[in-house]
């Protein structure tokens, strides 16, 4: 295989790519933490294991993104995850929301998995080869999440009146937050133009084509009206700070720990 000519990024492009990689990783880390909160509490043992698996995979993906960032600016992934406070995190508000009930958890994971799978699928074509490689790797893993959570959403929506009510409530609560996932970070447009990052509009169209018929036709759910204008990724809900306090506690208490 002949390697394509290496793409050289300008300083502003590099800064924008770092912002994007960090945002992608932050979404994964925070959602994984929410998934991990179910450990020991999921309705059945198999689902306890499944959510732990999914959370572990998402952390693996965060690790891949942060390794790409390390190659650009030498930053340490563990330090980024465990020492940044809420003001420094750039996760979407969707993943910060408290875990809620099982319907909320599964629906959020499904909406996110579909977004991630579609984004990764497109990112496999990135002109920035290290990102294309990461996307090719993570995409294979993400399919399993989507397969699993899509079935759960269907099962809950078509289950009992109570499970349908909870799933619809979850959709109503989550839908307004979705737009943020498809919002570019500062400088992203230029990177999209150069084929470094997927076009988020195209990703959104494909996501809609996948998710909307599943939710409405297959699951019989009603889509709420589209959300209002989305704030930037620097504006967080009040839920992020307590989550980080718990997630970072050990790392902050033992900053020099080498073995966990």
């Amino acid at each position, binding site marked *: 295989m002949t390697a394509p000519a290496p793409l050289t990024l300008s300083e502003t492009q590099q800064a924008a790519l770092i912002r994007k990689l960090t945002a992608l990783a932050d979404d994964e880390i925070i959602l994984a933490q929410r998934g991990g909160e179910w450990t020991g509490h999921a309705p059945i043992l*198999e*689902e306890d*294991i*499944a959510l*732990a*698996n*999914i959370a*572990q*995979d*998402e*952390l*693996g*993906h965060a*690790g*891949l993104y942060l390794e790409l960032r390390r190659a650009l600016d030498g930053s340490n992934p563990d330090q980024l995850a465990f020492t940044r406070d809420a003001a420094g995190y750039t996760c979407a508000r969707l993943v910060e929301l408290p875990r809620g009930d099982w319907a909320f958890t599964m629906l959020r994971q499904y909406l996110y998995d579909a977004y991630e*799978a579609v984004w990764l*699928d497109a990112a496999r074509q990135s002109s920035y080869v290290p990102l294309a*490689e*990461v996307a*090719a*790797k*993570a995409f*294979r*893993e993400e*399919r*399993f999440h*989507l*397969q*699993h959570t*899509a*079935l759960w959403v269907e099962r809950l929506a078509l289950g009992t009146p109570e499970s349908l009510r909870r799933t619809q409530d979850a959709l109503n609560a989550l839908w307004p937050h979705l737009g943020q996932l498809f919002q570019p970070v500062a400088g992203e447009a230029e990177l999209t133009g150069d084929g470094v990052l997927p076009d988020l509009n195209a990703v959104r169209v494909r996501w809609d084509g*996948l998710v909307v018929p599943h939710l409405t036709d297959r699951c019989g759910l009603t889509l709420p009206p589209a959300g209002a204008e989305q704030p930037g990724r620097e504006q967080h809900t009040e839920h992020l700070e307590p989550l980080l306090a718990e997630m970072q506690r050990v790392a902050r208490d033992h900053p020099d720990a080498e073995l966990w």
Partner: protein
Amino acid sequence: MTVPHAPLTPQAIWAALDTVPDPEIPVVSVTDMGMVRDVQIAQDGAVTVTFTPTFSGCPALHVIRDSIGQAVRDLGAPAVEVRSTLTPPWTTDWIKEDARERLREYGIAPPAPAEDGLIQLQADATRCPRCGSFDVRMTGSFGPTLCKRLYVCDACKEPFEGFKSI
């Protein structure tokens, strides 16, 4: 006493790596799993082993990396570098034929051929590793490790783990 080492050859290194077990599935080695992609020996004897992670979030990766380094150092290599690569991405298609048989004997259904499509709503046909029946049910789409799923065989009534096809 220092045991004299034979001159280092790629064959010797591959043979040593054949004995490095997968920490989560000790009946197969890292080479059985197709994780070792390349072995290079420099003029000065420094060895570079390139390996590819199975699942990106696999918690055993650092153990695997350390074990590969140790196995090569044990052969007397003056320096060892264990590099990781994501390209081409690891696939269960690289698991060796005889290793698949060992997995089956160990009670883990080997993976079906991998596909690269976006979404599969139907999992691949899985055969019970104990009695060979296709009359099986998946009871958990994720297993005790990232690479496996949980099944029950309705023919012999035994629960078992199956490798994901990735």
